């Protein structure tokens, strides 16, 4: 019992991280109908920027994190403004293929710039942990969880309580009506992609603090973002949290009861099940998930 409770707690902590990561993917998909297969590579870029800032510039982690976010924010803006906006009217698989190509290019650039070595930061938090109700919580996991939750709440506030949030939502519902009411749609699209990018950057910084990473490690993050978004439902922040935690718990339970090789496959099996039984996800709203041919 104690063991299962500990595993569920680990799953919840991991799930908070997954939720935050998936939101950057979800907002781009929900608003622009772009499935960004280069998302994992953007996370890796965030991780590399963090590592450079900490090791080369000697910055503290708290300063490196915004720097990583800024780098991927700008990257996201430029990508959407210069390239992806041109594909806005095309069919869904055009953008899918486009971002796959982008992902290949980014992986290759990361390989050239940072080599194929697997890297990690020196253990920032050490192995220290505290206990709640007899369950141990490592400081590193708790910090990641806290930052991820703060990002999630921040995004919620941005979307619901600011003019930019209103513009993004209006554009997502009906780009033509938004244009007629004076919203600069290409700019809003670019900003949305940039926000998704910033979240990828923060996720990357978090990855750098406690996981090892390499140019090709990004793909598994893209896949997990996929699973979380589909589980929770497109465009839903509570859905992302529920989906993230569900995935975190299921993955941890799977590594306990099954061979650890099935860890990723269990997530996908869950995804297939949800797609068949509840195609809009557990918390999905019709609005965001409207699929264009």
């Amino acid at each position, binding site marked *: 019992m104690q063991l299962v409770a500990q595993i569920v707690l680990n799953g919840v902590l991991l799930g908070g991280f997954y939720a935050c990561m998936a939101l950057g993917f979800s907002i781009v*998909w929900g608003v622009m*109908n772009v*499935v960004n297969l280069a998302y994992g590579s953007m996370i890796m870029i965030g991780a590399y920027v963090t590592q450079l800032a900490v090791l080369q510039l000697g910055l503290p982690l708290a300063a490196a994190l915004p720097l990583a976010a800024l780098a991927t924010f700008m990257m996201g803006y430029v990508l959407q403004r210069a*390239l992806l906006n*041109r*594909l806005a009217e*095309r069919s*869904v*698989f*055009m*953008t*899918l*293929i*486009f971002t*796959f*190509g*982008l*992902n*290949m*290019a*980014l*992986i*290759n*650039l990361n*390989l*050239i710039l940072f080599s194929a070595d697997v890297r990690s930061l020196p253990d920032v938090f050490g192995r220290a942990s505290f206990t709640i109700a007899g369950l141990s919580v490592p400081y590193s996991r708790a910090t990641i969880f806290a930052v991820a939750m703060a990002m999630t709440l921040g995004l919620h506030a941005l979307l619901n309580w600011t003019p930019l949030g209103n513009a993004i939502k209006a554009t997502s519902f009906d780009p033509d009506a938004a244009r007629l009411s004076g919203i600069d749609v290409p700019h809003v699209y670019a900003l949305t992609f940039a926000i998704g990018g910033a979240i990828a950057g923060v996720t990357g910084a978090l990855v750098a603090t406690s996981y090892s990473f390499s140019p090709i490690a990004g793909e598994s993050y893209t*896949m997990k973002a*996929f*699973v979380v978004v*589909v589980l929770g439902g497109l465009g839903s922040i509570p859905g992302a949290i529920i989906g993230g935690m569900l995935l975190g718990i299921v993955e941890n339970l799977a590594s306990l009861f099954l*061979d650890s*090789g*099935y860890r*990723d*496959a269990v997530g*996908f*099996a869950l*995804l*297939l099940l949800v*797609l*068949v039984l509840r*195609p809009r996800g557990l918390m999905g709203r019709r609005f965001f998930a409207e*699929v*264009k*041919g």
Partner: protein
Amino acid sequence: MAASTLRARWGNGPWAGTLRSAAIGCVLMAILMVLPSFLSLYWLRLLTSVLMLAVIAQGMNAMAGFVGYPAFGNVVFFGIGAYGTALAIAAGFAMGPALLFGAIPAGGLALAVGPLLLRLRGHYFAIATLGLNEVVSALAANLSGLTGGAAGLSLPLGAGTAGDAAQRAYVGFAALFAASLLLGIFLRDSRFGYGCRAIRSNEEAAEATGVPTLRVKSIAWMLSALLTAVAGGLYARWVGFIEPSLVFDMAISVKAFVMFLLGGAGTVFGPLIGALLIESATTLAWSHLLKLHLLVLGVTIMLVVLLLPDGAQGFVARHWPAVRARLRRRS
């Protein structure tokens, strides 16, 4: 002019397009039959892989181009075909029956999950097929007793020299390529194919006019799966060693996708044109820019999507009238 004689003889009747495609196909196959005697082993291998990719791209085209369902994870059938065939060969079956051991499970899987997954559309269908590939791939990697697990599976060598084996692989893929052309013509011109295209342009309207949409989609996916699985089986025999990360590699699917897009979606010969262009570009990148080959391929993909959204054939069709007008004015 040959083309005008053809047109005069067959007119623009209902089967004109079919006959023209069949004629082009016969010429192509004749060329493919003669070519090996002029090619070195290196070029023969390259041509074999072009044919293989053209077949996989046609499998993708069958679903994504003709029916409008982006079966992104179609590589799952390639992997199943490779493993089924390899295991059958290891168990002592001859090549022909061994291919069936790959093709039947793949077609069966498409028929079994088709009715469930083909209710999803767009990104959701694409992701579901991707998930299917991940699950099957994980099974292949973890059921070590059956598949050899992540360490892979080696096949016993076939008879004769390496050159003989390359020849056999070439003949196999050329025959399969002919079958893929027939599938393309079937999907373009048959009653069944009209059903597919009706689904592509408007599924609700197709359903309302009496197309049994779910059945048509499932059968189309099964045909796509069979083609892809046989390609996987031939590939396993050709390279002699398979592992999950090799034959369930999403990059194969994506390449196939880009190829048929580049060649022209929903056309008979598009996949071949795309495979020729992309595979040549990839081979050039591999041999001259080894460190940059992913970048080159990635940028090529992005450029294709940005500049040639309706494929090379569409590009020519769009610009040819203007070019012809200019040529006429000059002369």
